[in-house]
């Protein structure tokens, strides 16, 4: 077991620190065949990421996930990923697909899955009009870590917000007009979202056709969106966002979202499930600041009105402890299964509570180290003061390769969000090769 760890880590470290070939300086050449456009395109990346994590065996979410495993405190895991993109273009039509294949080895088990993340047909009758139909991501919103107005997207991981997401099946149009004057751009994006047994069955109630729309304005050098989702699969949602550069190096952005008749399901320490219905009003405010020496700071405050109060989370964690103790004394898994079902209904999501602060500081190429970007990210739950802290360094000096070494330190009191996560810390090396 130990030898296997050493082998994989040595492979990864070799890739990170292997001397790159020293190309000799030569006359500059530009082969024009490199600029020729082909109707077909095939590309993507492969990724290998070994990881070591330290288990928090007393944490509620560790007990819920691994109650029937006897794991060591230090665990290793290996993930493999292939993201494949392909397109074919003819005239004004373009077919595009993005396929994601994940494999992994963790806790002595192999896993794998393949998903079509996106696959759609795009028609561009003019530069003002784009029509699209198929599975795609819309990525609405201006926030970096969270997007309360992204009504049509799956939630992104605030710990790695730039990861690609699986889309939903839609038919959409983008109609754009440009003007001179304070209003420079106006775009209208209507979207149809079919929800049936074979389409978007995890989006909401089935057998309905839903309608969404976005109006985008570039007005007085400010990006502004107005967003609406209406239909029977989900309750109505309305949102707006903005982004503006106050100075060339200082950007501010924000989002507001209202969800009518939101139903929040909570579970208490006795396992009783309650449903509360209310209009949820969430918002996000953020800034991005770049200093003269290329230090970028991103700070966001997020209030998620669909999130849980501290006492609701404490009740959930207490129920998991009760279910775990019942399992230990009787071998009965029923209560743990109930806690798992409750997790899937909302309380187990990435950031399930109400008030968060995100801060990321990164410096591009410090000390003249070209292609090195060190960064540190903190996500803090402001209700219970628990947090995760993630220092990382990214190296992109080898053509088509990106290497990231990242640690994640998770801290919090008992019954707090991060205090009850399955790990105390983890270290991950991610080597990505683009082709």
């Amino acid at each position, binding site marked *: 077991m130990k030898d296997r760890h050493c082998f994989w880590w040595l492979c990864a470290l070799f890739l990170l620190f292997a001397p790159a070939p020293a190309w000799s300086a030569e006359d500059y050449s530009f082969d024009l065949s490199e600029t020729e456009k082909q109707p077909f395109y095939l590309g993507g990346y492969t990724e290998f990421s070994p990881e070591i994590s330290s288990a928090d065996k007393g944490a509620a979410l560790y007990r819920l996930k691994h109650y029937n495993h006897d794991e060591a405190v230090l665990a290793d895991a290996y993930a493999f990923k292939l993201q494949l993109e392909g397109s074919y273009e003819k005239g004004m039509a373009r077919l595009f697909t993005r396929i994601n294949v994940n494999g992994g080895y963790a806790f002595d088990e192999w896993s794998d899955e393949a998903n079509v993340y996106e696959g759609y047909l795009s028609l561009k009758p003019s530069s003002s009009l784009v029509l699209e139909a198929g599975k795609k991501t819309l990525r609405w919103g201006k926030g970096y870590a969270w997007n309360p107005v992204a009504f049509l997207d799956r939630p992104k991981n605030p710990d790695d917000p730039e990861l690609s997401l699986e889309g939903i099946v839609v038919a959409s149009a983008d109609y754009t007009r440009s003007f001179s004057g304070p209003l420079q751009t106006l775009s209208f994006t209507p979207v149809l979202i079919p929800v049936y047994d074979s389409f978007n069955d995890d989006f909401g109630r089935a057998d309905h056709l839903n309608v969404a729309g976005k109006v985008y304005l570039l007005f007085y050098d400010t990006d502004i969106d107005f967003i609406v989702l209406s239909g029977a699969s989900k309750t109505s949602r309305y949102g707006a966002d903005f982004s503006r550069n106050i100075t060339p190096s200082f950007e501010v*952005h924000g989002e507001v979202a209202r969800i009518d008749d939101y139903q929040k399901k909570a579970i208490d320490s006795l396992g009783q499930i309650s449903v509360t219905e209310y209009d949820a009003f969430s918002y996000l405010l953020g800034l991005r600041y770049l200093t003269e020496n290329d230090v970028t700071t991103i700070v966001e405050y997020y209030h998620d009105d669909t999130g849980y109060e501290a006492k609701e989370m404490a009740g959930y964690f207490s129920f998991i402890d009760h279910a775990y103790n019942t399992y230990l004394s009787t071998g009965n898994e029923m209560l743990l299964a109930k806690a798992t079902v409750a997790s899937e209904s909302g309380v187990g999501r990435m950031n399930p509570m109400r008030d968060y602060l995100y801060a990321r500081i990164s410096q591009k*190429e410090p000390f*003249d180290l070209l292609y090195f970007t060190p960064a540190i990210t903190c996500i803090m739950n402001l209700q219970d003061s628990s947090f995760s802290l993630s220092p990382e360094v990214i190296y992109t000096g080898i053509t088509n390769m990106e290497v990231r070494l990242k640690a994640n330190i998770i801290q919090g009191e008992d019954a707090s969000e991060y205090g009850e996560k399955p790990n105390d810390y983890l270290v991950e090396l991610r080597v990505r090769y683009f082709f």
Partner: protein
Amino acid sequence: MKKYLTVLLAVFFLAPVYAGTVSAAEEDTQLLQQIDRNMNPESYESYRKLINIEPDGRKKEFILYTVKKDADKVASLFLEPASEKGRSTLRLGDNMWLYIPNVGKPVRITSLQSVVGGVFNNADIMQLDYAAEYTVEKKEEQGGEVLLHLKARTRTVSYDRVRLRADTKTLLPTKIECLTEGLMLIKTLYFKEVKDFGGGIVRPSVIETDSPLYKGYKSVMIMAKIKQREFKDEVFTMTFMPNIDSLREAAK
């Protein structure tokens, strides 16, 4: 009465001097505009290869397709390397965005950042006409070259001061120094290998740059297929950023 007479005399003698100054300033602006036009048509498409060269000789190359319209609209699409393919940048005056296909939405960026690393920053890659961003403060003639001292029109322009040297006969730049307000040198651009691109476009095909801030590093930009082409304004919008590749003509 004596006072009015003094004012009238002053106006009489100073007006031609002032008019001459205005006329010289206009001439200098026209000269800068001419240099801009000699470099590119006002609306065009082009291909560029950017090469970042490290002190040990290692290189990293990028290929970009670029379209420009009017004085303040530029969009670029990365074609190579594979890790950057599909990324696009858009500049509308002082507004700049970067679109990354994986992220799936454009985000605002600033002119001082560099999407490619190395010595070229975003303003260099999405260069507008110099006359749109700078005024001519002073003109000097030195050994077959004209030296224009340029000052940024607004504080949002990435370099406060620029010294532009151009050949007096061809009115093509030979060297451009980018400076801070306190005249500290940020980088120098060297324009080399004048080439006929067809359609009346004759201009330097290679731009080298170095910077005292990146000692030993060098970046090079090689131009190809510069062609006058008209585009609709809607091409230069955030919504169109994922579709810039559709503007390129397929290989025959």
